[in-house]
């Protein structure tokens, strides 16, 4: 009941803002020389957006780009969907590509960008995950990153450990680390999303064994619980937990605690997104050279490779941007894909992987994590995470992986629970084969 009235209010409020902001835009005080740009409001994103805007305004005299901010997460999703539906969106905005992009109904809401000059200078994985029904909608911004294991290089050197290529090697390394009195695997359930890496970061290994998993999974035929290769992520998590490899404060530690632990050598390995390494210098100054990155290993050393996020986000132009503003918006996105745009962007967000625009090159002094990630990209041993290959991602995965990590359910039960969660998402999207 409460939710029902909330939704009604939301629609009402959206309609109201739709009117007022629309009429403001219509007055067009500064003509076609000004556009607005909507960015997420976390510190790194805002810093990057500001640097990008400053560089763009410097290169194009007399043009202004006004920065607007929005919350991240589900609140941001709702805001964007509502503003798109009411025709009240900023001229350019940042949003996820991959599974979340299709939920924006790009064919009705977004301007296709296939004809843009930069369209053939972008990372292929990024292009795939920013394309819906054969049309490219997203412009490249920032860098890609991987999902794998952040590790402490001095510990690995001291104990003479090799980067593990199989899961068994990973467990052997962990045993040796534990023997040396160091925490082998850091977990941080104080921020639940960090618990998903064992599952999400394992997708390269799933696809290596079951090449058409994404397709079968989207069609409702392959499940986590009935595909051993997919269930392995849950199993690995339970194995590490049962072996007693977690840090003592795993249930309450936060992402910053975890990054700090692996940077200072309190813990040796931390399954995490490579992008999180951007925070090392803040929580453990001077330690960013001590942290490296490797892929979560699977069964077979020959198929070892990394699950990657080809950009968490891209730049989009809504259909509501027209005329002079449209051409300026296109110019802005094109600028972001140039070396100047890329350089400006990484002033705010230190790169943890290769640029999505292939016209850009990383500076020489990037972090070890960025170098390690780029090596996987260069050798072609990179697979996009499942959320880039299938429109369905269950929203409760983070709670389920916490359940497995805290021993409330077994790996197998966890996988089965996640299949149920996914089913709801597929039904809400109205996918065939799920009713």
């Amino acid at each position: 009941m409460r939710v029902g009235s909330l939704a009604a209010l939301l629609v009402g409020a959206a309609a109201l803002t739709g009117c007022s902001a629309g009429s403001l835009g219509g007055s067009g005080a500064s003509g076609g020389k000004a556009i607005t740009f909507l960015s997420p409001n976390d510190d790194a994103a805002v810093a990057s957006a500001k640097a990008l805007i400053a560089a763009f305004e410097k290169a194009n005299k007399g043009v202004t780009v006004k920065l607007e901010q929005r919350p991240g997460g589900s609140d941001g999703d709702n805001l964007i969907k509502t503003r798109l539906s009411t025709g009240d969106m900023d001229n350019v905005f940042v949003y996820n590509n991959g599974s979340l992009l299709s939920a924006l109904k790009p064919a009705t809401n977004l301007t296709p960008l296939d004809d843009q000059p930069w369209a053939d200078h972008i990372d292929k994985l990024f292009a795939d995950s920013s394309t819906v029904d054969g049309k490219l909608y997203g412009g490249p911004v920032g860098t890609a990153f991987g999902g794998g294991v952040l590790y402490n290089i001095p510990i690995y050197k001291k104990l003479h450990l090799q980067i593990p290529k199989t899961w068994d090697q990973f467990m052997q390394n962990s045993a040796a680390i534990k023997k040396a009195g160091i925490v082998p695997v850091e977990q941080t359930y104080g921020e639940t999303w960090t618990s998903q890496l064992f599952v999400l970061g394992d997708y390269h290994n799933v696809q290596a064994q079951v090449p058409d998993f994404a397709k079968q999974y989207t069609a409702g035929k392959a499940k986590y619980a009935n595909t051993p290769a997919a269930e392995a992520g849950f199993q690995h998590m339970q194995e590490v937990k049962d072996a007693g490899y977690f840090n003592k404060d795993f249930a309450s530690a936060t992402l910053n605690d975890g990054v700090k632990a692996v940077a200072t050598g309190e813990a040796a390995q931390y399954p995490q997104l490579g992008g999180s390494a951007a925070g090392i210098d803040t929580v453990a100054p001077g330690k960013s050279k001590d942290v490296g990155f490797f892929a979560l290993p699977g069964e077979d050393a020959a198929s070892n490779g990394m699950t990657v996020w080809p950009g968490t986000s891209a730049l989009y132009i809504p259909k509501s941007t027209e005329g002079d503003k449209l051409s300026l918006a296109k110019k802005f996105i094109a600028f972001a894909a140039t070396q100047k745009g890329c350089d400006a962007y990484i002033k705010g967000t230190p790169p943890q992987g290769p640029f999505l625009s292939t016209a850009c090159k990383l500076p020489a002094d990037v972090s070890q994590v960025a170098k390690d990630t780029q090596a996987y990209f260069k050798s072609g041993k990179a697979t996009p995470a499942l959320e880039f290959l299938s429109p369905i991602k269950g929203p409760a995965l983070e709670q389920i992986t916490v359940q497995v990590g805290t021993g409330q359910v077994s790996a197998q039960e966890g996988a089965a629970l996640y299949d149920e969660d996914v089913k709801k998402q597929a039904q809400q999207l109205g996918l065939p084969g799920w009713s």
Partner: protein
Amino acid sequence: MASNLSTAETTGIASTPPTPKNRTKRHKGPYPYWFYLVPGLIYGVFFVVPTFSSFYYSFTRWDLFTSTWIGLDNYQQFFAEQALVIGLRNTLIYAVMTSGLKVVLGMALAVLLTSKIIARGYLRSVVFFPVLVSVIGVGLTFTVLMNPEKGLINNALGAVGVAGPGWLTNPHLAIYSVALVDVWKGVGLATVIYIAGLVSIPHDYYEAARVDGASSWDMFRHITLPLAKPATASVITLSLIGGLRSFDLIWSMTKGGPGFASDVIASVIYKQYQAGFFGLSTAGSVVLFVLVTVIVVPLTWWLNRGETT
């Protein structure tokens, strides 16, 4: 709007001269019926329509602009959910525990604070103070205090040689920890209601009992307790409804975690709404509405049954 209202009022009074004869003939209340029009309209638009449309939407799979009729599927799915079974149990534990403790502690504090003690006014303010603080603020503060490794509570326990538990990180304990914080925050209101109830008990009863040689316990048991029954009824009803619908404190402290261990129905609904399962969460809201009604209506009737006679 405001000027419209005031003209409406004046014309209203003018058109119905307040002669007693006229009033009794047309209706019993002091105001003409159409005075209820504006509040009725507001109530209808913001309460009745959303309530009934949510009954409809709970049978559909909808987003902001389209809906598909799917019959009872949402309810079926909602009741098949693992989180819901935990949530239903937790909701009942939470509601019964918080309302029970508020009755006992509120009564005890009220007895204390109506007796002749030093700094009574100050102590009354101290007890009531947590009620005034924002729920989210309380939640975040206690999350820090209850941190198993760095929190003040476990550090204090550690200083006297007790290894404190993971208040919010132990799946078996989390919901009780939150409930205790809820009691800390809400007991002030229960106390105030009880104080009001206790001071309205005539002193003659106590004097008569004392003459008859009754002990303090006898007086509490046979005078205070029965005569404070209306206050008890209010406290139970208010805290039980509050407990059944509780969401903000749980969300700010555990977000229903670890895993689903401290989920209540309201947090399950919220998560489904957040995930975009609008139909499912609407069905959940209807379930919560029915649950609250089924528990609270008979309870209120039972608690108040002696009152009018």
